[in-house]
């Protein structure tokens, strides 16, 4: 339960910039079930890193270990120390994670409040991100008064306002309809391009992965292994709607879907009731 990801000063001697996140043979078992199998991976700073994989491939487990909410069974996770005054990571959780007992404002200010940031600074930062996500006008409302899309925007504002070194996003848009999703992709990219934080973003949508990511890691059906990592060389800043009309986008989606397809089929064949 109290698992901690080790925070280590990474060696800075080499020519290549040290990765922000570094995993070495990270394995995770739930009881005896192997969830993640020897993941070795470097994520450079300021990268928008997307992980796609079939359901049950251990994506969320991976993210929870990066967040320090779970500990690996074997292997090491090294995360570069954050700059002074910044938390190492903040997570945008899958599903409803806003506290129902706090207003939009108090939810968005949560991380800063917990870190005892001066009130004037909190007002400034939270105001900024609620404006960016279009939720400033709703700041006195409670989550039950908001739509699912609005709640997820507040959840994003909460993570960005906390100003972490690394943003961890666990299928933040999976419960939303297509229009809301597209709008939130645009907002997320706009905010991200201002800050260029290191992002690890989990999704099961190939479109979402290509739209947002710099690199896309495809995972195998459980136990989760790295199948391939595909660089996305689409120019930034990206216009979400126009991007989808370009041939390069279509090719990438096709390639990644082809890779993912095999794994989805494998995952399905193991479901109860399917023919072996």
């Amino acid at each position: 339960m109290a698992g901690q990801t080790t925070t280590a000063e990474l060696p800075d001697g080499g020519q290549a910039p040290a990765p922000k996140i570094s995993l070495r043979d990270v394995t995770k078992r739930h009881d005896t079930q192997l969830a993640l199998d020897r993941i070795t991976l470097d994520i450079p700073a300021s990268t928008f890193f997307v992980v796609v994989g079939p359901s049950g491939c251990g994506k969320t487990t991976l993210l929870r270990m990066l967040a320090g909410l779970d500990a690996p069974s074997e292997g090491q996770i090294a995360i570069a120390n954050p700059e002074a005054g910044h938390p190492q990571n903040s997570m945008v959780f899958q599903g409803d994670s806003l506290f129902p007992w706090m207003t939009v404002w108090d939810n968005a200010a949560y991380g800063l409040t917990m870190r005892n940031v001066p009130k004037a600074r909190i007002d400034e930062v939270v105001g900024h991100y609620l404006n960016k996500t279009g939720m400033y006008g709703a700041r006195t409302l409670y989550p039950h008064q908001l739509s699912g899309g609005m709640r997820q925007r507040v959840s994003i504002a909460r993570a960005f306002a906390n100003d972490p070194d690394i943003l961890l996003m666990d299928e933040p848009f999976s419960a939303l309809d297509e229009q809301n999703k597209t709008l939130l992709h645009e907002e997320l990219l706009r905010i991200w391009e201002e800050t260029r934080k290191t992002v690890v973003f989990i999704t099961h949508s190939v479109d979402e992965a290509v739209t947002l990511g710099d690199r896309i890691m495809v995972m195998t059906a459980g136990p989760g292994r790295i199948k391939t990592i595909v660089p996305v060389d689409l120019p930034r800043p990206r216009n979400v709607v126009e991007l989808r009309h370009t041939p390069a986008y279509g090719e990438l989606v096709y390639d990644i879907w082809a890779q993912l397809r095999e794994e989805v089929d494998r995952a399905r064949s193991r479901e109860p009731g399917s023919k072996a």
Partner: protein
Amino acid sequence: MSAARPRSLWSDRTISILSPLVLLGLWEICARTGIVDVRFFPAPSNIIGHLFELASSGALWRHVGASLYRLAAGFVVGCVPAIVIGLAIGLYRPVRAAFDPLISATYPIPKSSLLPLILLIFGLGESSKIAMVAIGVFYPVVINTAAGVRQIAPIFLDVGRNFGASRFNMFRTVALPGALPLIMTGIKLGAGMGLVLIAIAEMVGAKQGLGYMIWNAWELFDVQTMYVGLFVIAIIGFVMNAGFDALERAIVPWRKG
């Protein structure tokens, strides 16, 4: 006639006000016409009249004041530790392991049966009455608080941890507000139990209070005073409940969508 249509709130309320009035009216008629024995069932008009007599003589207020003081003191003494222990039981497994068997073993004991023991320990003074109320309040509050914490979705605890909440802040910003709706349920049940127990406790070894007033009236065969006592206890219970409902609406504004 077509199928029943939803009646307005107003008509529901009218019915709920009218039904006790109709009952009182019937009682009045039965008492006056001699259908019921007025030695046991004095006419409501006589009881109300007697209530005003007792109120203007000051005797009623002395008893009400004594009972309310014990109720309030016992409520605080029982409620505060119940919330703290309940939160700890809900949050920490070792605390749960330590307290759960104790609570489940002692909870089924009828609290009124503890009165002799409490009198033995605390004597005949105020503290035994306060202790009885506190015990009555403690159980529903501690059980509901622990249940309230345990029904908090695990994601909220993850959010607290991920955003760096200290142990104290996990209590203050996650466990307490998350459990608050059920804590309020426990408080309402506990207050009702406290009222039951204060009436019983005051019947033994007390010189004032509503329970004493009722018991003393029985000994003197002063049936009207007995009814006044019952009536006032009912009013206190009703007002208390309405007060907690209002409090709940004020401090749990997120409860209803």
